[in-house]
């Protein structure tokens, strides 16, 4: 049963790192979630190189793999006016030849070593990742170092790279849920934070090689780059290799991002489809704020699992839709609750009305059993993440970006344990869902009730 996975409520795993050297912690002594606490021994590492690169590591016993992710600060917030898509085009260009390797040799050398690689651009980062059998790490690291430091950025590759970005944009036009979410982010966040990181076709068509080269030179830089590795790791060996490959890398300077204004709160996107897609959103504290735990727990009660209120009321009781959920989307300084549903045009208004009613009903009605289930799901997800090298490499990097530190699993579980109906209701009373944004995408616009639109 495919679901809108992008919107699932995520409780990020957290690990507290000492600045240097390993820390071994056994959270079974500290967790008070259930009597049956898991025994998970964490071995965590971190260090910062002189040029500002942050290295994070977690050894995961029992795994044969390692996963590594290089997160450079060359995110889409630096695209610039009229150049939406520059970070994405630049990220694609960096893969098209680096050091002594051609575009094809980069891919063949990575895949010949069995590396499952990926490249992506988000609002905040341009990232290059790989997962592999641990013994292949020495083969992969020099390739990634070349991509970061010595991308060829040749004019010959520009048109193909541009066409690839444009093809991807054309594909997203056929994905109604993606379009609704993209429209919502533009409403929720001030520019450039709400702009689509994949770009805008008209802008991408105008970008030249000089813009790409300038962007890479300025923003793919060691300071604020996070390199996270997890799995079967030899930390000292890894740090030694990174120092050789990237220790003398010194380029780029930090540039402030100027925030623009937000869009209107309501928007209808005309789209020729049987279903109408609905997205409802309001502000929440960002992940680095301690009360994000209260906020996301309330959101999970609303729409985070199959026993959540939205799933029960919209799908199970009324059969109004196939997909309905509520999730947490956080940038470093802004965050949002995002509720989503897709349903046939004739039933879309009722679906929106039920969603809005459940959102309005939330404060003052939370039940202890609901919170117990939210805690259980969060705890389970945290422990299961320890089975995946790629999930952990992503998790510790995300935490460093948001918090400037990594929390231990034990600290995370303890924080969840402190959640109570009183603490969440207290937070909701002070911060009830308000100033909702609503996006609809489909044949006909929907009516937003006056009490919401006021």
């Amino acid at each position, binding site marked *: 049963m495919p679901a809108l996975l992008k919107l699932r409520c995520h409780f990020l795993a957290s690990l507290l790192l000492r600045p240097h050297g390993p820390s071994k912690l056994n959270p079974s002594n500290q967790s008070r979630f259930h009597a049956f606490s898991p025994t998970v021994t964490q071995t965590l590492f971190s260090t910062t190189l002189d040029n500002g690169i942050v290295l994070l590591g977690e050894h995961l016993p029992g795994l044969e793999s390692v996963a590594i992710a290089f997160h450079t600060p060359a995110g889409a917030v630096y695209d610039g006016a009229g150049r939406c898509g520059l970070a994405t085009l630049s990220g694609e260009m960096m893969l098209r030849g680096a050091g002594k390797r051609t575009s094809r040799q980069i891919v063949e050398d990575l895949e010949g070593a069995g590396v499952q690689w990926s490249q992506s651009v988000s609002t905040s980062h341009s990232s290059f990742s790989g997962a592999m059998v641990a013994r292949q790490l020495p083969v992969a690291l020099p390739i990634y170092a070349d991509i970061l430091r010595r991308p060829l950025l040749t004019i010959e590759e520009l048109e*193909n790279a541009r066409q690839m970005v444009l093809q991807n944009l054309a594909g997203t036009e056929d994905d109604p849920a993606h379009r609704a979410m993209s429209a919502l982010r533009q409403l929720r966040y001030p520019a450039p934070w709400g702009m689509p990181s994949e770009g805008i076709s008209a802008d991408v068509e105008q970008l030249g090689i000089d813009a790409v080269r300038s962007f890479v030179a300025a923003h793919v830089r060691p300071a604020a780059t996070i390199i996270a590795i997890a799995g079967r790791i030899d930390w000292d060996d890894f740090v030694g290799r990174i120092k050789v490959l990237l220790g003398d890398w010194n380029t780029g300077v930090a540039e402030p991002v100027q925030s623009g204004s937000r869009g209107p709160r309501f928007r209808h996107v005309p789209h020729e489809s049987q279903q109408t897609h609905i997205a409802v959103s309001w502000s929440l504290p960002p992940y680095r704020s301690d009360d994000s735990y209260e906020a996301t727990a309330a959101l999970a009660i609303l729409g985070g699992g199959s026993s959540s209120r939205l799933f029960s009321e919209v799908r199970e009781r009324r059969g*109004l839709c196939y997909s309905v959920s509520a999730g947490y989307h956080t940038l470093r300084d802004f965050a949002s609750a995002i509720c989503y549903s*897709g349903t046939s045009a004739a039933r879309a208004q009722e679906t929106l009305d039920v969603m809005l009613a459940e959102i309005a009903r939330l404060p003052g009605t939370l039940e202890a059993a609901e919170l117990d289930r939210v805690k259980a799901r969060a705890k389970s997800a945290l422990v*299961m993440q*320890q089975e995946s090298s790629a999930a952990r490499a992503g998790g510790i990097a995300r935490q460093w970006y948001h918090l400037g530190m990594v929390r231990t699993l034990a600290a995370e579980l303890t924080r969840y344990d402190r959640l109570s109906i009183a603490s969440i209701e207290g937070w909701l009373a002070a911060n009830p869902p308000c100033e909702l944004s609503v996006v609809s995408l489909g044949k006909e616009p929907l009516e937003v009730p006056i009490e919401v639109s006021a």
Partner: protein
Amino acid sequence: MKFLHEQLDNGLDIIAEITDAALSTSVGFFVKTGARDESNDLWGASHFLEHMVFKGTHDLSADEINRRFDWMGASANAFTSEEDTVYHAAVLPEQQVEATSLLARMMRPALRAEDFATEKLVILEEIRMYDDQPPFGADDRCRAAFFGSHPLARSVLGTVESIEALSVEAMRDYHRRRYAPGTIVLAASGAVNFNELVESARRFCGDWEPMASPPRRVPFEPRPAGSSSSLEYITRPTASLEYAVRLSAGPAGDNADRFASKLLATILGDDSGSRLYWSLVDSGEAEHASCHHYDFLDAGLFGTQLSCDAKDVVELLARIQEIYQDAAGQAALGRDGAGVGISAAELEQARNKLAGRVVLGGERPQRRLFSIGVEWAHKGSYRSVSDDLQIVEKIDLDDIRRVLDRWPLDGPSTTVLAGPYPAATSIEQPAAAE
């Protein structure tokens, strides 16, 4: 890793792959029924029934089931394919008994008429959702054309008409016939307590009445070499891209050549680093171009997918045909340095790629559950991660050549286009292998 198997007196198979280092337990019921086991008047019943299983038993409401899964912290879900219906949950080990017993009880659903009516609306929404998405029905239409009168021609979701016409009585009868203990495998992976698994099965499944199930295999004869290819259109004038699905015959699930076929598909049409990738995607001419091998109980196929600007679809389909001819060594492509036939270097790269995937996938109990469950449901056998690695390692160029010879990718094929491409315009059919 350790593998264990036991069978209850009523025929229910219980299997487990136990990994000492695992932190979680995955458990699932693999029911040997899917779209291929339906008749025309039951079209879509397997998938609809999968939804109804979550609507409760005679002593458990739907809300209670949802609450219990969330209370366990379970990642629980289900899916239906042409051949299988699978209910699964990933939990922390201390919840194994609770998860197993809940899933087991769900296998005997109440199938209440009022729930059936409400859930029918959800199924219809699911059909509309997929109809609004790429490839806009091209995959279902292509499979129907490719399989003709074979049971695998039937789509999993059914149609709006078949779902509206389905009665709760027909579903109850279908459930009674298809959810007998001999057609179900209880599988678990990760940190499994096997004794408790068997005990849960005895307690909650031991009284299920055994019932003979009819044979599922139906001989499938792909069109003989030399017969013409077919082409159909689904017109979506407002779509941004054109979506093409092309199917041709491949080895079935009981054919040893299926492994070499997956390696061949990796070389030709993996999502990155393949011949299709370098020729069509890297150049920015296609949004997506891939080839994969799919095997079923009694049939197999190579599926090619392409999405691109509508004005380019004719040229790119022709180029894909050239790439397949080139792989077979029948014609030189002379583009991008790709040589005639498959090279040893390409084989080695694809082997390493697949081996990496096997190792990484082997670390996740949730993924291993699907591998071992489907393998046992289809073949009554078990393959470990080591077995899979050895299979990949042993595939050589002779195996690849044999697959290309027996199942020519450039031979007769079935293609469906969906998008703005004008249906009135004729596309020259790919040449059939003689």
